[in-house]
């Protein structure tokens, strides 16, 4: 009942909208997407409204986020990669804020749905593929034939490279989705133990201290995971973008 760990992932329609037999309802997921975007935009814009030469606390936080992503992108895709900075920065901020929003009790975690993370991963992969093909033409396929590999080995290496390229959107999306989902389920299960044991008399309440401590520790871990997964998603995006810019390794 109270500790059904799956319930938090249910999509509830807030404003049902249906167009041509397709469901486009404004759901709790949509609401939290809007909130994520609004909060992230408001923070970044309001914190920098002073345009201080010497930043105050919130401004330096925004600058830190900017320089963190810029450093990632520059170090893995070079200065050329900076043309993708708005996209990479948007992805990082969106995923980070969505993950962190998920840490609030009763909040919906947008990134705990595979379709959302998969859509973001496809956005990255399509950007890489389309830009790579437009920029390098057929040379983009050098990506699958690393330089310096003997032709015989190429017969083995090329299929492996193709498979690894095709599995990128899957691994990128499943990693984020699974981490958020598993983390929230674990958290919910342990918190549920606290409630059900606490209901079982004094001995149960004493025993509930253990899962309570576990819940506290897991909450800290989940905050770390929330940041870490945003970071991993972004750094992998940077590496894939590097492939689009420099396909011949």
């Amino acid at each position, binding site marked *: 009942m109270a500790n059904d760990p799956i319930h938090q992932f249910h999509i509830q329609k807030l404003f049902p909208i249906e167009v041509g037999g397709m*469901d486009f309802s404004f759901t709790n*997921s949509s609401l939290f997407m809007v909130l994520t975007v609004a909060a992230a935009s408001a923070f970044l814009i309001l914190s920098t409204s002073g*345009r201080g*030469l010497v930043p105050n606390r919130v401004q330096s936080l925004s600058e830190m986020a*900017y320089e963190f992503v810029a450093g990632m992108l520059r170090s893995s895709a070079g200065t050329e990669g900076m043309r993708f900075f708005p996209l990479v920065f948007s992805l990082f901020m969106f995923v980070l804020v969505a993950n962190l929003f998920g840490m609030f009790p009763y909040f919906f975690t947008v990134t705990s749905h*595979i379709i959302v993370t998969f859509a973001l991963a496809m956005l990255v992969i399509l950007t890489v593929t389309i830009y790579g093909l437009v920029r390098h033409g057929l040379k983009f396929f050098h990506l699958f034939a690393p330089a310096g590999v003997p032709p015989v080995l190429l017969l083995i290496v090329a299929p492996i490279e193709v498979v690894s390229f095709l599995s990128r959107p899957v691994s990128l999306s499943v990693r984020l989705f699974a981490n958020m989902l598993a983390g929230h389920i674990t958290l919910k299960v342990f918190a549920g133990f606290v409630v059900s044991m606490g209901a079982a008399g004094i001995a149960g309440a004493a025993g509930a201290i253990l899962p309570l401590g576990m819940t506290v520790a897991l909450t800290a871990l989940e905050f770390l995971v929330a940041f870490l997964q945003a970071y991993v998603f972004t750094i992998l995006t940077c590496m894939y973008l590097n492939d689009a810019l420099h396909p011949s390794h």
Partner: protein
Amino acid sequence: MAGDAHSNAELNAEVHIPESEHGAGFPPFDATTYSSQILWLAITFGAFYWIMKNVAVPRISGILEDREDRIAGDLSEANRLKEETDEAIAAYEQALAEARNKAHAIASETRAKLKADQEARREKAEAELNEKLKAAEAQIAGVKTEALSQIGDIAGETTSVLVEQLIGKAPTKTDLNKALKSAMN
């Protein structure tokens, strides 16, 4: 909470939305919600991308560039001032060296002049002294000659007196001279 879901399902059933469409089972794998999620993700993420690209990123990069420019400007200004200081120090040191050289020159010039003056005076004094010495020597020689020329007369007289006292009779001039000559030579 699952009870809520249950009552939701009942509610949905009442408004003629079949249970299967509401997503019995695992919500993330419920394909009926995908179209809505993709649409709203596209709308929200698209808006977010637009805001980032056109407002947030240019603003933050502007702030950072301004700061970099300011720091670079301040550093170059500091360098310029340092160069100016170095130049001033070099000029000062050069002026000091020049002044020292000039002082040196003046000192050695003065020393040489004083030395020359002194030398001249010394030479003049020496010459005078030499002259005086010569004059004195000449005088001494004159006196000596005179004394020597008179010594004969004195000796003669003395001898004459002595002889007179001894023998009671003065010797003759010729004897006296003869005796004196043999004695003095």
